[in-house]
């Protein structure tokens, strides 16, 4: 029955053209197009340089495109603020759909309240992977087009170790996107509103970003438990830094993953708890 709830949510979302356009497509496609034009603009400027280019710049401009290294580089910062903000449109759309369209009374008899809400949470988790993969695909496509125009060689350069790093980075980014999406779920359930779900999640994300910076300025360390538990963005950065072989210990990365998972489990549990008590005649 949980799968029925997930399938129904995904079916309805798939028919909502505007939602998936804004939530899943705009940032990956838009970023890749802007990036491609920017790179071609730079390339044109470099070609026009009369005195020739400094050797280091020349080297960078003509460096082969290593697909593996490029993908890992992109995956390390995949869950960027733009992608998260636009994904919230999709998450809030799923979360608030039955309040928005007054359809709880139609589907409530079909399933338990817990399944219905977990169905929404898992549908959000399912669609969260789409903008991430699309982002990587579009960026890669942009790079391949650029390399072709610039006559740069393209090499795969993806061994097993790099593949592992890439997959782990994508999964961590997915956790981060899911975590932000679930904030929209809890906010939409509490406010019974799509707008409430979106705005509160955005405000929460922005607020925690400011507070995190303040606390780090006051002497909190990024690797401390309290930082990793209170600020999911910090936990995400710590895990990605660890995966990129930065100065983070495995123990700290483990703590950061726990922090991220708690930020997924907490809002989900809170949403189910709220929903179990809700009067569904007031949609």
């Amino acid at each position, binding site marked *: 029955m949980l799968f029925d709830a997930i399938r129904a949510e995904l079916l*309805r979302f798939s028919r909502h053209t505007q939602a998936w356009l804004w939530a899943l497509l705009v940032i990956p496609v838009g970023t890749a197009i802007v990036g491609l034009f920017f790179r071609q603009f730079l390339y044109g400027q470099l070609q026009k340089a009369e005195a020739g280019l400094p050797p280091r710049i020349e080297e960078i401009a003509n460096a082969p495109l290593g697909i593996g290294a490029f993908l890992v580089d992109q995956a390390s910062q995949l869950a960027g603020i733009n992608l998260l903000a636009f994904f919230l449109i999709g998450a809030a759309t799923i979360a608030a759909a039955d309040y928005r369209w007054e359809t709880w009374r139609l589907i409530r008899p079909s399933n338990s309240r817990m399944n219905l809400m977990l169905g929404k949470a898992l549908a959000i988790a399912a669609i969260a992977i789409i903008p991430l993969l699309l982002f990587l695909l579009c960026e890669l496509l942009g790079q391949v087009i650029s390399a072709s125009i610039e006559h740069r060689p393209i090499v795969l350069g993806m061994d097993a170790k790099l593949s592992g790093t890439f997959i782990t980075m994508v999964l961590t980014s997915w956790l981060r996107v899911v975590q932000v999406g679930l904030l929209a779920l809890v906010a939409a359930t509490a406010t019974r509103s799509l707008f409430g779900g979106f705005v509160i999640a955005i405000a929460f994300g922005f607020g925690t970003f400011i507070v995190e910076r303040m606390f780090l300025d006051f002497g909190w360390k990024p690797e401390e438990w309290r930082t990793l538990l209170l600020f999911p963005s910090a936990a995400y950065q710590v895990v990605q830094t660890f995966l990129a072989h930065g100065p983070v210990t495995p123990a700290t990365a483990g703590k950061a993953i726990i922090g991220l998972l708690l930020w997924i489990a907490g809002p989900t549990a809170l949403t189910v708890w709220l929903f179990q008590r809700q009067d569904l005649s007031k949609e």
Partner: protein
Amino acid sequence: MNAVISIDNLTKTFGEVRALNGLSLEIPKGGVYGILGPNGAGKSTLFRVLLGLIEPTTGHAEVMGYPIGHTPTLRQIGSMIETPRYPAFMSARECLLWLATAHGQAREVDIDYWLDRVGLTEAAHRKVRGYSVGMMQRLGIAAALMTRPDLVILDEPTSGMDPPGIVEIRGLIRDLVETDGVTVIVASHQLLEVQRMCDRVAILNRGRLAAEGSVAELSQSSAHLRLTASPLAKVMDIVGEAGEISGDTILVNIRREDTAGLIRHLVMEGIDVMEAQWVGADLEAIFIAETRAPSQVQEPAHAV
């Protein structure tokens, strides 16, 4: 009575408003059961409680032998509460597919058949944002019936429909009851429609049961003795407040077994009794009589 729904002393309050006020009712299995009542009588609240959308404040109710909110039981209920709404970006066909998927019956449900049954085949691929109220009602009825439920709860199912549509839906409901053995509970303000469609009715007033029985039983219990007699004034003197002049006749509200005694008394008093006939009340008269008392729905719920 083999009850499909048993309600015992059910109360639901919203702040200070008592929508259900100690309602007790048994709805038998099979047939079409009508729930009548003026606005605020508690009909929609009752349906919402039965469908697990809201929790009752006090009291107990069972649906098909299980306490309300029991999900496997709820899955055997098809329902339409007031005019349903659907995601505006979906077509009627997509809406039914979505609901069938939510119910775990995406493959089993014959969506085209149900669209045809409610007369929406031609509009099946149109977005529902352009649908009229009547079309939304038809879609809601298809949604309520398509999973072949054992119990169907319909709140104002023919609201917003044109007369042919009403006849069509009435036929569909009666057909379901007679061929599939489904129990249908209908709330409606259209008393004539209820009289035509329902086997039994309950009249709610102020969150309580005002009257219950088959349409024939209620009609008989509210029947009057119609007397054509002369002089009418002398008859009125004898029957007092039990009588009411209606044109050239007097309607007398007495027990049926007192008929012979009354007529004998009138004749002995020198009154010419030309005709005496027991007439049953129609549902509208019963409804008005049972719901005439001033509403107490707004009373504070101190007792809860």
